[in-house]
Structures are given as structure tokens and as C-alpha cells.
């Protein structure tokens, strides 16, 4: 029990510590692929340090919602990180049915961010909040269809148990991994506002989705928002990697190796996609998300009928 708790705490610390590095890695790879040298690998840490030292200024008309929202964001992200298995280590929070808690913890953070954006009263931020809410509506079924089908296969409803009970002898499991990781990748791209859906580097308010919501925050608030953004990206990366854990044959060392190589491969994939893909028109994004949902539905159908 003591060892299990220690492992859980270490894995949360790993997620908290390495998430800016992952974001830095993606940015660096993207820069290299487009022929630039790019910012240093540790740039996110420097930026966070800079923001940490700055003064926080709140808009005059804002209420307590915009004060607590950044903190709520960070705390929900930490709770979500505490539910993920890193390598083969047992997470701190793990019980039957925690996939639903996981989805709605992330939903809670989004809810508070939307509220805070509307609280400030700027029209741009209201627009960004509306967009975020619309796309989140289409993004949620993707999570439930892909994780619902994997939970159907294994017969468990806890993230840790699901990933630990699946065997990969069956060829249909490999196909399942490929299909599921496509739809989870599309989900990650949407939730973390990366390239085909939202451009993290854009500076035109009319085209922004996620970035426009934190336009009026500064100092410590902005630090908290950015940090939770990095953690969110890493959380989705771990979710994607966790499909590949059954290949490790339940070995601790192999699990860690899969975790590290998986992160590197995923960072490269994100970099490549951001380099070659152009941004979709705003009206095409729901279609893109519905496509990912369709893949999830197909998964579920197949597993209902081959059982």
C-alpha cells in the first residue's frame, strides 16, 4: 500500500514536472521541421518563470469567478493527472467508474474557463467562450466512444484496470489500437487547441478559439492558465500512449520505456501534423470532430458484434 501510494505520487510529480518540457519539445520539433532553429527546449519553463514574477491585474468589471478560475483550472488538471497510469505505476486516484470522473473533471476546468471568459465582459472573450463550448460539445462523444469501447472489451470501468487487463494476443486488439489512437489523437488536437483546429501561435482575435479566452489575464493568473494548458497536453499524450501499454507484457521497466518512446513519437507526430496541416475553416471543425466520433462508434459496433 505504501509503495503504491509512493508510485502514484511520483507519477503525478512526473506529469507536473515534465509537461512544459513536452510542450517545448513539440514546439522545437515544429520549428526544426519548418526550417527554423526555434526556441530552446526549456522555453516554456522560462516563460512561466517570467509570468510568475509579474503582477496580476484583474479587469475592473470582473467578479470572484475570474479570481478562482485559474486555480480551479490547475487543481482539476492535477486531479486528472493523478488518475492516469504513468508506465505501470498505480495512480493515486483509482476506483470503479473513474473514466467518467476523468472526463468531467476536464469538463469542469473547461466550464470555469468559459465562465471566467464571459465574466470579464469583453466581446472577444465571449466569442471565444462560445466557440470553445460548441466544439467541446462535439469533442466529448469522442472520449466516451473510444474509452467506452475499450472498457467494453476489458469489462472494467477504471482507467488503470482497463489498461492492465487487456491482452494483446488477439489481432483485433491491434486494429482496435490503431483505430482508437486515431480518434484519441484527433480529440487531443482539439482539446489542446493544436493545429488543424486552432493555431496556438495566432494573434488575430477573430480566428482564435482557446487563446482568446485568456487574453485579459496577466501575471500569476496567466501563469496558472498556461501551466494547466501544458499539463492538459501531456495528459492527452499519456492517454494516447496508454493504449500501447498492453504490449509491455506487464513489465515495469518495459512500461517506462514505452512511456518515454511513446512521448517522443507523439511529440514528433504533433510536430509533423502542425507542419503539414493547414487550419480548418471554423465551420468545418464540427465535421472533423464528428468524423472522429464516427470512428469511435465504429469501434463500439465492432466490439458489440464480435464478442
Amino acid at each position, binding site marked *: 500500500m505504501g509503495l503504491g501510494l509512493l508510485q502514484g505520487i511520483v507519477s503525478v510529480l512526473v506529469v507536473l514536472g515534465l509537461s512544459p518540457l513536452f510542450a517545448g519539445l513539440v514546439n522545437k520539433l515544429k520549428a526544426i521541421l519548418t526550417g527554423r532553429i526555434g526556441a530552446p527546449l526549456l522555453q516554456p519553463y522560462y516563460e512561466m518563470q517570467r509570468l510568475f514574477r509579474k503582477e496580476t491585474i484583474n479587469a475592473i468589471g470582473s467578479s470572484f469567478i475570474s479570481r478562482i478560475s485559474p486555480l480551479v483550472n490547475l487543481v482539476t488538471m492535477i486531479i486528472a493527472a493523478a488518475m492516469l497510469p504513468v508506465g505501470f505505476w498505480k495512480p493515486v486516484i483509482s476506483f470503479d467508474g473513474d473514466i467518467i470522473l476523468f472526463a468531467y473533471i476536464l469538463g469542469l476546468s473547461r466550464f470555469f474557463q468559459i465562465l471566467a471568459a464571459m465574466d470579464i465582459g469583453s466581446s472577444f472573450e465571449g466569442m471565444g467562450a462560445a466557440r470553445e463550448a460548441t466544439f467541446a460539445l462535439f469533442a466529448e462523444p469522442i472520449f466516451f466512444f473510444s474509452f467506452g469501447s475499450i472498457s467494453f472489451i476489458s469489462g472494467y470501468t477504471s482507467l488503470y484496470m482497463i489498461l492492465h487487463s487487456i491482452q494483446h494476443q488477439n489481432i483485433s486488439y491491434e*486494429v482496435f489500437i490503431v*483505430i482508437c489512437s486515431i480518434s484519441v489523437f484527433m480529440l487531443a488536437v482539439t482539446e489542446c487547441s493544436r493545429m488543424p483546429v486552432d493555431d496556438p501561435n495566432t494573434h488575430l482575435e477573430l480566428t482564435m478559439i482557446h487563446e482568446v479566452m485568456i487574453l485579459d489575464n496577466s501575471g500569476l493568473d496567466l501563469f496558472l492558465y498556461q501551466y494547466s494548458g501544458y499539463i492538459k497536453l501531456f495528459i492527452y499524450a499519456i492517454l494516447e500512449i496508454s493504449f500501447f501499454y498492453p504490449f509491455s507484457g506487464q513489465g515495469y521497466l518495459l512500461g517506462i520505456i514505452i512511456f518515454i518512446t511513446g512521448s517522443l513519437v507523439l511529440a514528433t507526430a504533433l510536430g509533423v501534423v502542425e507542419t503539414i496541416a493547414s487550419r480548418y475553416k471554423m465551420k468545418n471543425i464540427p465535421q472533423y470532430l464528428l468524423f472522429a466520433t464516427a470512428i469511435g*462508434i465504429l469501434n463500439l459496433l465492432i466490439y458489440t458484434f464480435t464478442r
Partner: protein
Amino acid sequence: MENVLSILFCLSLFYLSVTSRVKAYVTVLRVQGIILTILLVIPFLSHFSVYGIIIPATMLIVKVIYIPRYINKVILDLDIKRRIEPTIQQMVFLALVIATIVIIFFASQLLSKSTPLNVIPFASGFSAIAIGIYIIMFRKKLIVHVCGFLVLENGIFLFGTSVAFELPMLIELGTLLDVFVVVFLMGIALNRISSTFEGFEVAHLGRLKD
């Protein structure tokens, strides 16, 4: 293995319903041809026979190499624009496709209780037939109609392999010939239309007079 290939086939159908390029349709046709060829080759890995390899070989030549190349040639020759020009929104089309596939899967599950069949290949083939018809219904371009017809034809093939493992060879060869003739005729028709009219949309055919 058949299930895996059928899943890939279904994925290609989803891709067909979101893409808006004519070129992507041709690529998907090629991929579907490859999937069907592999599906036909698998039974011969265990007991090889020269006679049985004829259909997969014909399939490879006609569906993977010849027809896509011919369609590409038509696209190049007639200088067809790359947008497919749907008559309804792509999003609605995709929702329609999802609903259809779900209904078909459940229906074939019900069917499989009374007759022996492989549910997943059967349902995938059935969905391809439905989606081929949808493509013909909801697209304006003639060349896309040809692609829709070919998807329908692929669906019939998959459907056939799931019901009976050995269709009479003459029928299979017959279907291949059928498709070939249709594509050929379409090419000729498109060429004729191009010499008379500017566009290649079905809407223009409504105004055809002698």
C-alpha cells in the same frame, strides 16, 4: 482477418463521406480495391490453386490499376475542378452515413440469428451499397457519380464474400466486366457532354434538349 479488413473498408467509407476532393475519391477506390483483393487472396494461402487466383488477379488489374487510372485520365483530359460540390452539407451527410451504418449493423445482427453469415463483412458491404447510393444522390458531379457506383459495386463484392465463400466464378467475372463497361461508357458520355456543354454537373442534364 476478414473482420480487420472489413473495418478498414468501413473507415474508408467514413473518409469518403468527409472528403471534398475528387482525387481523394479515386484514392479511396484504389484502397478499397486493394482491401478486396487481399480478402480474396486469403483463402488461397491455405490451399493454393491456379484456377482460384484468376479473380484476385483480375480484380487487382481492373479495380486497383486500370479503373483509377482511367478516371484520373478523364479528370485530367476534361479539366474537372477538384471540388465535389455536394448538394447537402457535408456534416449532414456524415451524420446520415453514421446513422445508416449503425442501423445496418443492428439489422445484420438480427439477420445473423436466422441465417449463417459473418456479421461484420456483411454489414460493411451492405453499408458500402447504401453509401454508394448516397453519393450518387447527394453529389452534383458526374465523375463522382461514377465513383459512387464503383463504391456500390465494391460493397456488393464484400457482401457476396460474406454470404457465400465461393461465389460462382462466372458471376464474379461478370460483375467485373459490368463495372468496366460502365466506367467506359461514362467516359464516353463525359467526353460527349464536354463537347456540347461547359460543365460536368447533373444539373445541366436537366436542360438537355434536342
